[in-house]
């Protein structure tokens, strides 16, 4: 009984917040033109969903977000491990990392649009670049701090040197990599929406911007709600996957 109630109790503050929102709207405390009631938002959500709009735009956005995210994951993990293993790679990549670390990646979106056009490529590039850094940094730091004796053990048990990164380093750094990936996942939705705000005719970011411009604030809120739900679900899915992959850490 208590176990079944744990999740609803954990999220209780959200339900209380939503309830206060609806009550405030009904009591006339909010300007209905600027701050629609929860009920209106939900009605707009159903309206957008029914027309198939929401799903279409969400599909486009998810494609961009996941392409950028997975490319960044593959590229980031490989270069993080290579940086830790090879001085040459480190000498090339470390200055680049340090220089780009404080740079807000969204500032580059207009440049990407200039270079890659207004289609998917610029948006994927923005997500990719934004996700890259936390993944590279977490992988690199973990790989550098790896217990050398794990590598020695594998050597003495017959693993050839070229397979060490795959057989020993990657599984050993996985916990840190997963937490870097989780940060990147959250960033990927931010960058996706930001890139879609700027230009294009499709995607949830576009939908939010265009509904806002049309003064359909309930619809705009509904689109924001859709982004939130997708981001939240992606994070929960990621946590589940992470727990499964790292089940060996559980005491």
């Amino acid at each position, binding site marked *: 009984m208590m176990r079944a109630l744990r999740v609803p109790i954990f999220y209780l503050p959200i339900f209380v917040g939503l309830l206060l929102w609806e009550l405030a709207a009904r009591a006339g405390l909010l300007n209905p033109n600027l701050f629609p009631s929860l009920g209106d938002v939900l009605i707009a959500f159903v309206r957008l969903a029914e027309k198939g709009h929401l799903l279409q735009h969400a599909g486009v956005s998810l494609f961009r977000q996941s392409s950028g995210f997975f490319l960044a994951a593959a590229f980031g993990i490989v270069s993080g491990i290579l940086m830790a293993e090879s001085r040459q790679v480190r000498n090339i990549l470390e200055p680049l990392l340090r220089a780009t670390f404080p740079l807000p990646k969204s500032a580059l979106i207009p440049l990407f649009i200039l270079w890659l056009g207004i289609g998917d490529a610029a948006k994927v590039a923005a997500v990719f670049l934004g996700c890259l850094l936390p993944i590279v940094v977490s992988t690199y730091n973990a790989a550098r701090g790896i217990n050398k004796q794990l590598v020695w053990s*594998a050597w003495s*048990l017959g693993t050839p040197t070229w397979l060490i990164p795959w057989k020993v380093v990657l*599984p050993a750094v996985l916990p840190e990599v997963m937490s870097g990936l989780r940060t990147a996942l959250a960033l990927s939705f931010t960058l996706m929406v930001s890139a879609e705000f700027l230009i294009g005719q499709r995607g949830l970011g576009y939908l939010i911007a265009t509904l806002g411009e049309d003064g359909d604030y309930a619809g705009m809120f509904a689109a924001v709600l859709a982004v939130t739900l997708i981001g939240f679900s992606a994070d929960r899915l990621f946590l589940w996957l992470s727990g499964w992959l790292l089940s060996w850490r559980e005491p």
Partner: protein
Amino acid sequence: MALIEIDGVSKIYPLENNRELTAIDRVNLTIGDGEFVSIIGPSGCGKSTLLHMIGGFVPCSSGEIRVRDVKVTSPGPDRGIVFQHFALFPWKTVLGNVEYGLVERGIAKAERRRTAQAFIDMVKLSGFENTFPNRLSGGMQQRVAIARMLACEPSILLMDEPFGALDAQTRKILQEEIRELWQRFRKTVVFVTHDVREAVYLSQRVVVMSARPGRIKTIIETGLGPDASRAAIDQKADELWDLLRDEVVRTIAEERPVA
């Protein structure tokens, strides 16, 4: 017959501003096939480094180490190693760890299961095959590491303070078990420790190293059979401690910050 020949081996680490640190200074030592040799010395004397060089993990600065007349240049499955802190693969179960070397050698699944199980049984971990290392006590983890090493059937066992991280009671049990294992298989063991009694109890010869730079101060034949009395072991350990004591005192004096 000489199995391991350590021939004028030094280890020198470069320091800042062109200075160097001599960790090991021209060590010569020959270890015979099937011998159990312990290396003791004060902390920082380079005894572990010497073991790592036999393993091929760390290169010699000068001199060379030969195993069966072949110069050691890299690690190899003929030399198994266990470390003080076990170095098990935490993402693999007990079975996965013990099987690891067999997988690397391309042994078929059914056979490697059988082999791994035999070694798991030997180190008394039956029933823990599917447990992950972080759910095991230190003593059990070290048993897994020993089984993982033995499963590859190395002819030389390198043991780097293997019981240093264990509590006194567990250490005692594992010492007895290692002695039994050695008497059964007669593999060559090079055993690094700073526990004098442990060295005497387990080995045929004890190599005493000096404080840094690590040199061989003396080599003692324990001359104790498998059923040596407690008194005989204690007496030999006291003898050895007298030799080691000066080196330990010297190490402590050097570590003390200059006022």
